[in-house]
């Protein structure tokens, strides 16, 4: 078995036993990347020199007998909407193509403190707006299971880097499914933590009330280990929840006898492909055999999740992206006539079509005369969605659903019709609206050998239940650590 095929948990044990050094691991990660990156295109920026220096520093600490955190010395990729001091952070946009943040995001401080070695910055849909990674203005990323198909998005580069064995773990962000849907399309594990769990300080904002940073891995244990590094209160993020977190890794337990799992009937009907439905229902059967109690539940407001999501997220995006005006940082048009024209031309030339579309929708739903009908109503409906879930969690411990209506579609298949692309988010957006945690992992393959994912949704701060349920299924199904290519 090659180093690139190993999980982060295995690499952590090897490092601890001094069977391998972090420099060797880092070199192996870049060698694997050199071999497959042309087909995959996961990265916008590779930071090999810095990674090797960071790895050597960790090795020196280990050699000196220092007690190091679990993941110290393990390579990790980071989505390119997370600020890295002195390393360009582009959001896959022409607007920020040459932006070098003057500070590190809090999650970068956490990765450094835990001794992880960043390999580079991964591709995404521009400003994390998209579901296929095709909206990147800078890079094309392809699904490692079949390069004719998309990776999903927006964290497509993160998912692809893990699926292709370039790294064992990655950091992404999720506003409406941006960790979970690419994890599903690429056959890896992705966790969207409870809102307020991971600091968003230094995450370039898309929709602040929905955005959350989270981990990718090729097995549940790896996702849990990286989540443990990322979680924690941060005074620099006013939405960070002030509380302590127990280690998910230490609490891992695959015994789920008596666990109650809900299947919401609204998620298995019209619009969901038969192959996907069947595979997720087969997973439910596995859970029954493992001693869980599987019951049908109802989330009656599910059909309104998509309009609520696109109103709230676009409204917040239009406000958040107002800062990109060509003045203090980012792209400035070369030709303009006065200050207003500088704003207009810089924004029109710097933002791609999908970003402009969302800003337009957001500006519309916030504009005078329409605010009450759209934004205010969506905010009230958000409360109703939360109440829907609260009621469901009175009956069950976790909820099992599909992640997306289909497996990874072909490159270019949906780019001309944004509405069709939005419809693909139907199974993931309500989790962000309600601020809940959810985890995605592979549960099978379709007839084209493309991965099918399943989603486990938990109550607020219920991550331990998710990883335990996920681990139980992983052990029973053997669908773990799938390296494509």
């Amino acid at each position, binding site marked *: 078995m090659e180093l690139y095929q190993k999980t982060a948990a295995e690499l952590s044990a090897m490092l601890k036993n001094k069977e391998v050094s972090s420099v060797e691991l880092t070199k192996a990660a870049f060698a694997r990347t050199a071999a497959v990156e042309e087909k995959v295109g996961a990265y916008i920026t590779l930071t090999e020199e810095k990674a090797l220096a960071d790895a050597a520093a960790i090795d020196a600490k280990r050699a000196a007998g220092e007690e190091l955190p679990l993941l110290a010395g393990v390579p990790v990729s980071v989505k390119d909407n997370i600020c890295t001091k002195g390393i360009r952070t582009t959001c896959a946009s022409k607007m920020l193509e040459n932006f070098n943040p003057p500070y590190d995001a809090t999650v970068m401080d956490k990765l450094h403190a835990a001794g992880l070695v960043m390999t580079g910055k991964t591709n995404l849909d521009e400003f994390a707006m998209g579901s296929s990674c095709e909206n990147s203005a800078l890079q094309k990323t392809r699904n490692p299971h079949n390069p004719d198909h998309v990776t999903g998005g927006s964290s497509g580069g993160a998912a692809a880097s893990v699926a292709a064995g370039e790294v064992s773990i990655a950091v992404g962000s999720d506003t409406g499914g941006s960790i979970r849907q690419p994890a599903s399309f690429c056959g890896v594990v992705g966790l969207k933590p409870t809102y307020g769990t991971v600091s968003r300080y230094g995450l370039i904002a898309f929709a602040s009330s929905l955005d959350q940073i989270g981990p990718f891995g090729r097995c549940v244990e790896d996702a849990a280990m990286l989540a443990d590094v990322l979680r924690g209160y941060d005074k620099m993020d006013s939405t960070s929840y002030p509380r302590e977190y127990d280690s998910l890794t230490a609490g891992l337990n695959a015994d789920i006898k008596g666990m109650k799992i809900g299947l919401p009937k609204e998620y298995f009907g019209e619009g969901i492909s038969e192959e996907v439905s069947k595979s997720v229902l087969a997973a439910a059967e596995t859970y029954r055999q493992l001693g869980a109690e599987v019951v049908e539940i109802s989330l009656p407001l599910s059909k*309104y999740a998509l*309009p609520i999501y696109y*109103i709230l997220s676009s409204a917040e995006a239009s406000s958040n992206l107002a800062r990109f005006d060509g*003045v203090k940082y980012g792209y400035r048009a070369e030709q303009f006539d006065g200050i207003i024209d500088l704003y207009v031309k810089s924004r029109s030339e710097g933002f791609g*079509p999908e970003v*402009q579309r969302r800003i*337009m*929708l957001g500006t519309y739903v916030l504009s005078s005369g329409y605010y009450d009908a759209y934004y205010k109503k969506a905010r009230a409906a958000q409360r*109703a969605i939360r109440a829907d879930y609260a009621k469901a969690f009175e009956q069950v411990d976790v909820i099992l659903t599909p992640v997306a209506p289909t497996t990874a579609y072909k490159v270019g298949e949906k780019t001309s019709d*944004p509405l069709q692309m939005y419809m693909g988010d139907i199974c993931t957006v309500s989790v962000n609206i309600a601020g809940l945690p959810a985890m995605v992992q592979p549960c099978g393959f379709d007839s084209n050998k493309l991965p099918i994912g399943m989603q486990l949704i938990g109550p607020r701060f219920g991550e331990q239940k998710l990883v335990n349920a996920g681990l139980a299924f992983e052990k029973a199904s053997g669908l773990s650590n799938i390296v494509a290519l």
Partner: protein
Amino acid sequence: MAITRENVEYIANLARLDPKGKGFDKIAEDMQGIVSMVDQLQELDLGDITDVIDTERKNAMREDVPVPSYDKEDILANAPSVECGGVSVPRVVE
């Protein structure tokens, strides 16, 4: 809600986007479909849930203590145009 070209130009102006910019015609065309999709929300009867105030959440405040800020050089290095140690823009006052 029907979206006219006039509406689109009005919104583009509010958003400081150029309705004559490259590819904008397609964006204008897509607006109708997207607005029709979000219009589905209008059929939802929320009963007595009308307010949007979230009483569970409290504003998070930090102590008002001075701390070092970012390095001026690092910040100006990202500015598109710098003059005399500051960001420069076209004349805004006649």
